């Protein structure tokens, strides 16, 4: 049987030291982290993008990823969306007493792998062990910083009427995967999370097209909520066509079974790109040349008729609002 995590490991004493050198440095080590000073010494210059997020996903492991890689991807992507090269991340862990040590090791290894792939260094971290029941297995907080390399960089406030709205791929994969794993549901066709670091693609895109107005990743709340936020921030109408929004057949099927809307489900490896119409084709070409965005599509445009609102054209040509959700989506009765 695997060893269990003891409260001692959070004591700051020898057990903590063993955890740090035997596991964290093994998987996350680099020149900055290895120094084990109270803080990390960083060389950064110019405008900086910074973001923090805490990950509490259940289950910890799911098709397409795990809480470790997710914690890296989520923060790296958020930092990148401002037009920045993510450089450094921090990693704070809240661990529940009794956690399997090999589960922890798999997760930390995954953090290390994801950080290497994204080209960021984990430069400082923290570990707390709380008594059994005070937390659910493992919570991870990551904070990231990156150097902004385009000014003015993209922002949710910069959408302009006449802009094209693009998305980098299929919607709802992550959200449905987590829900189906958590509830033990299985569908005819398997679903898989799209969790991925988008920063390399974002850098390429912005180097070629610095005129991009908005970049956002539609995580919690999905495409619908993120577009609603952009519509409000920029005081414009986001007009989108449902028939152009890519959704995998397995996701569409699972959603219709549960009475959920894929446009409200979380994505962890996709982004929305809003830019002047004349650059749309070029952006799509760049996106589609990357494995993370082969299904990129223009899904609509920015208008001025209904400021602050998202209007959806349905496949039969009708129009309706696509509103933000109140609370979480719940599967239906009948």
């Amino acid at each position, binding site marked *: 049987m695997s060893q269990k995590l003891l409260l001692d490991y959070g004591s700051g004493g020898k057990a903590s030291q063993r955890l740090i050198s035997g596991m964290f440095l093994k998987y996350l080590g680099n020149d900055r982290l290895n120094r084990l000073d109270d803080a990390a010494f960083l060389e950064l210059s110019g405008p900086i993008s910074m973001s923090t997020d805490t990950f509490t996903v259940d289950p910890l492991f799911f098709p397409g990823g795990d809480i470790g890689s997710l914690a890296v991807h989520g923060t790296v992507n958020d930092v990148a969306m401002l037009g920045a090269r993510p450089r450094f991340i921090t990693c704070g862990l809240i661990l529940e007493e009794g956690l399997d040590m090999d589960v922890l090791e798999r997760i930390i290894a995954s953090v290390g792998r994801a950080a290497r792939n994204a080209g960021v260094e984990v430069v400082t971290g923290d570990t707390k062990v709380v008594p059994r029941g005070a937390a659910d297995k493992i919570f991870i907080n990551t904070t990231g910083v990156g150097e902004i390399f385009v000014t003015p960089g993209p922002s949710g406030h910069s959408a302009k009427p006449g802009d094209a709205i693009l998305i980098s791929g299929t919607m709802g994969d992550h959200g449905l995967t987590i829900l189906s794993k958590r509830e033990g549901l299985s569908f005819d066709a398997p679903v898989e999370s799209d969790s991925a670091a988008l920063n390399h693609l974002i850098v390429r895109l912005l180097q070629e097209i610095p005129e991009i107005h908005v970049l956002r990743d539609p995580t919690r709340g999905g495409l619908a909520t993120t577009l609603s936020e952009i519509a409000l921030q920029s005081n414009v109408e986001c007009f989108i066509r449902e028939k152009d929004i890519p959704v995998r057949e397995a996701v569409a099927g699972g959603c219709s079974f549960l009475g959920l809307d894929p446009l409200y489900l979380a994505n962890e490896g996709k982004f929305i790109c809003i830019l002047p119409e004349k650059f749309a084709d070029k952006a799509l070409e760049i996106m589609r040349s990357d494995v993370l965005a082969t299904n990129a599509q223009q899904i609509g445009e920015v208008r001025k008729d209904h400021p602050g609102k998202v209007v959806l054209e349905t496949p*039969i040509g009708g129009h309706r609002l696509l509103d933000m959700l109140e609370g979480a989506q719940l*599967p*239906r009765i009948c």
Partner: protein
Amino acid sequence: MNSLEQKLKDPKLCRSIVGRINEELDGELRFMEVCGTHTVSIFQSGVRSLLPDGIIHLSGPGCPVCVTHEREVAAFLDLAERKDVIVATFGDLMRVPGPNKRNLKAAQAEGARIKVVYSPFDAVNLAKEHPGDKVVFLGVGFETTAPTIAATIKIAQEAGVNNFLVLSFHKLVPPVMKVLVEDPELAVNAFMLPGHVCMVSGLEPYRFLADKHGIPAVVTGFEPVDILRSILTFIRMRNKGEAAVTNGYVRAVADGGNPKAQAIMNEVFEPCDALFRGMGSIPAAGLGIREAYGDFDAIRALGLTLPDVPPLAGCKCGDVLRGKIRPDECPLFKKVCTPANPVGPCMVSTEGSCAAYYKYQI
């Protein structure tokens, strides 16, 4: 998606039916979709925005969450407070406002043991996992849901799971429609009958609409083409001066319904009076658990009574459910009553008509 489904969403076909609706519509048509799934589908598919102004659709008492009476919600909340009870429920009920706007979500946050399940069978398993507790499943729904719950009760009985209970507030559609059409102020010319409910009950229980009251009714599926075709049927019947109850959903509904489902439902349940939100008590419109299955009846086993609850001030749910007003004609709509702060359940249910107007209406 198979080819039939594709066809039922086909934009060209939809446009051509809309064209015919425009040509043949003579005067105003006020139809009621009895089922909440229709309401949502009419908005979500964009059908509503394609219909001419002369067609007014009203939402009826067919969303199981919306018709749940505040006294019933009060009973849920009372149950949730019992220390030896785990409440198992479908997610839809979590946010339905009861007395003082309290709901199950709030009770859960305060420590009540409430588990959202995806199938009533999950509740039986939950009961097996917690032999020291009583697991009470909140039975809300129409003819669509009731047979499954009946089957679940039988399965629990066979498996000897005696700490599984059902609080049956199931409701039947035909008796409430009877109340609607007997209202002298009825403002509806045609009924779109609930496809899922009719899969179980068939067409027979609805014949009285045409035979006795001269109102056309069509059993309707949930795709845009289904809905548009039914509207065209209403118009054509009216233009010919005819009224009939017809089946526009033959791919799923047999005229006689599903005898097996009816049998199991009737074996476990018996008709009883039922409370409908905004409409009061309606004779024989509910389903109580028969004495033979009394061991699984939460009302009997736990000695539950429905607490008295003052009606919600200002909420026009009753008028909305009766088709007398559209949700946006309720004075509280969007002002006092929003999905974040719902006054009535029609604003929180995924199938609620007030929520549909709030969410989808441009």
